[in-house]
């Protein structure tokens, strides 16, 4: 596959065009669509590797378009919407989106997320082959226990031993919430006494390494007033 093709579907032509230009700079080929039907048509006639999809579009809205696409294709879909409620995000992700970016977006973040999704999509075939007991895959994260390595979208991330222990513990119990004390006792193997700050600082560092936008983490989440968890994907 020489060039990666991305479909940008947004009823606002200027936005579609801006995204197109941003991604062209990164070397991708862009197809623009201005409503859901156009997007579906474009998919028929083109081999597309990733879709950026707006929700509020005329003729066929983003979510319905996504359902139609998902009937046939498993390519990554990133929703790009002005709807910024948690409930909107959850709805979009549960209906089959791989990521959700709110407008107005930061262009670097957009590019990073697109790259992340593409990497995962491209590597998916390889990763599927090497799944074993010693490997935990959650979304774009994959933890290789044997080599004590964490891959984010296939790229290895440099972690300190403590950071690795924390992420290993949380990924082994994906979706479960652990308090700072529990994490501390598990990782440091010492009795925990006012460790909230210590743990929080480590969590923040890990987030900076594995998350595209550490302020809006996708994987490693703080459950405020309770603890920390790795989100299930």
């Amino acid at each position: 596959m020489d060039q990666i093709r991305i479909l940008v579907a947004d009823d606002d032509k200027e936005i579609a065009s801006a995204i197109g230009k941003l991604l062209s700079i990164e070397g991708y080929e862009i197809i623009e669509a201005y409503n859901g039907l156009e997007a579906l048509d474009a998919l028929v006639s083109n081999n597309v590797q990733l879709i950026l999809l707006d929700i509020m579009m005329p003729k066929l809205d983003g979510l319905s378009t996504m359902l139609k696409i998902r009937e046939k294709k498993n390519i990554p879909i990133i929703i790009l919407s002005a709807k910024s409620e948690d409930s909107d995000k959850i709805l979009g992700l549960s209906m089959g989106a791989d990521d959700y970016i709110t407008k107005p977006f930061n262009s670097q973040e957009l590019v990073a997320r697109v790259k992340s999704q593409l990497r995962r999509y491209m590597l998916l075939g390889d990763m599927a082959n090497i799944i074993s007991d010693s490997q935990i895959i959650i979304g774009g994260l994959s933890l290789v226990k044997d080599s004590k390595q964490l891959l984010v979208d296939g790229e290895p991330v440099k972690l300190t031993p403590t950071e690795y222990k924390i992420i290993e513990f949380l990924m082994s119990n994906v979706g479960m919430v652990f308090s700072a004390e529990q994490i501390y006792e598990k990782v440091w193997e010492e009795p925990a006494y006012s460790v909230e700050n210590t743990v929080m600082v480590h969590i923040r560092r890990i987030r900076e390494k594995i998350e595209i936008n550490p302020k809006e983490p996708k994987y490693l989440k703080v459950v405020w007033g309770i603890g920390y968890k790795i989100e299930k994907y």
Partner: protein
Amino acid sequence: MDTKLKSISRNTATKFIAFVIVVILFTTTIVSFVYLENLSFNYESLFVEQYKDSETFANEFNSAIHETNYFINDFPRNIPDKLDYLYYIKTDGLENTNSGKYTKEFFLSFKDSSFIYENGEILLGENTAPTFITSFNTQEDITMYIAFTDEYLGSKQVNWETAREKLIPIVITIIASIIISLALIVYLIAVTGRKHEDESVHYSWIDKIYTELLLLALFTTLSIWLASIVELSYYPRYYNFQLNSIQVRNIIIIGLVTAVCTILCGAFLLSISRKIKGKIFLKHSITYSLFSKINDFIKSLLDGRRFSKNSLTKTLHQRQIIFIMVSFILVFFTFLFIAVPPLILLPPILEIALIYWYIKYNNETYEEINKGFDESIEEQMKSERLKIDLITNVSHDLKTPLTSIISYVDLLGKEEDLSDTARDYVNILAEKSNRLKNIVSDLFDLAKSTSGNIYLDFESIDFKKLIEQTIGDMEDNIEKSGLQIKTNLPEEPVNILSDGKKLYRVFQNIIDNALKYSLQGTRIFINLEVIDRKAVATIKNTASYEMDFTQEEIMERFSRADSSRTTEGSGLGLSIAESFTNVCGGEFDIDIDGDMFKVIISFELL
């Protein structure tokens, strides 16, 4: 002249003096009267100068005749040795006398008081009035002479005159007192409640007492007064016109009681007359207010006023009342018609018709109510939806052009052949459009939370942990600011029910605010304590500028701690913090003390 008279007559002092005079005169009257009664004065001496002409003497004379006549029955026994008068009796040949004389002439010589009965005929003394003899019946065959001696009459006359001398001035005093009192009472009744300034009735505090209570008090006082007079009136028969010590004491007590009772009764009477004048005598009574309330209640039931608040069920209530009342009347007629057998079926038939009417129309009303209720709920939901839609749409419409702006500014920045000046401009545009993005985002967060259209995820969270996590999360910013954060948190968890994510935003905003506006080198204090089953968090910082605003002003939307408005941020931080705290179930407070800026957030403990 007329007004001057009015001003005097309506003067409080005048009225007061009149009242006091009435009390004194009335007390005098009663005391005098009781004094007279105690001494058993014979009031006849007032009108009749001579004892021998008096009714008293006539009675004495008559009883002497009857007494003597009575002696005859038991003659000659049982005749007392000592009598006030002289007699001679002759019957069945026996004769007796206490005078030593047996002749008719001797007895007739007492011209003022002699009585002769002989051969069935009555003969009186020369100056003896025939009216003295009321009735006399006896056997015809007796002879009876009776006479009072001049000495006896003389001594009686002396007593008579003494009494007369004492009685006349006292009685005149009493009569004068009564007349003056009555006049003053009439005056007082006329002027009470009136004032010189106007013609309206002025009430005093005593008029606040309900009419019934006033009357009851009046009659109670009168009863006590009369009872005390009856109880204390003790009239031993002394003829020397002297009072004994018990009588003196009793009269003094009666005088005091009378004075007090007169004051009270006077006050009550005047109050009553004021009320009558003001035409509130009946209105201002327990009975009246009770009746008017009952009346009002019944009226309100009938005319639907009572149910005007719940307009939906108004007709139901009215129908219910009609149903109950008509049923009651029908039951009454059923009992009445027991005596008239053919008619007894009528009330049940009417009752059935009534029940049919009641159920039929009630069902209609229920349907209406249900319809109305559904409609109102639908409307409410519609307006809720509209509100959410409005926020969402405005948000979308603002964000879409902003997305273009930000994207193109970014693309512009990627152009290589920009001049240095143009690059500066692009940087400014990028910075400002980013700020605009933050403001829009904050604005919608605030709009959603204040309008209640915010998704909340309540769970039990540890307040202490949340604060620690927030501080840990913001460590970079804290380090950058060069300020120190001092925490004082409890050892044990502080569990509250709240939305952790929102509460994190609250603390993030407050700490952010503190970092931005604190004086360099000062510390930010974050305390958490449990007071009265409440978790109270306080964030204190020393402002880097003079805070010339109040708590209220800072809470207003878009107000920022500094008036220059040049630094970054939307200015909505505190407003969002407040609004989020409130939707999360907590209380948000700000305290400004000199340069000390304090935020207090409290939650009920779980």
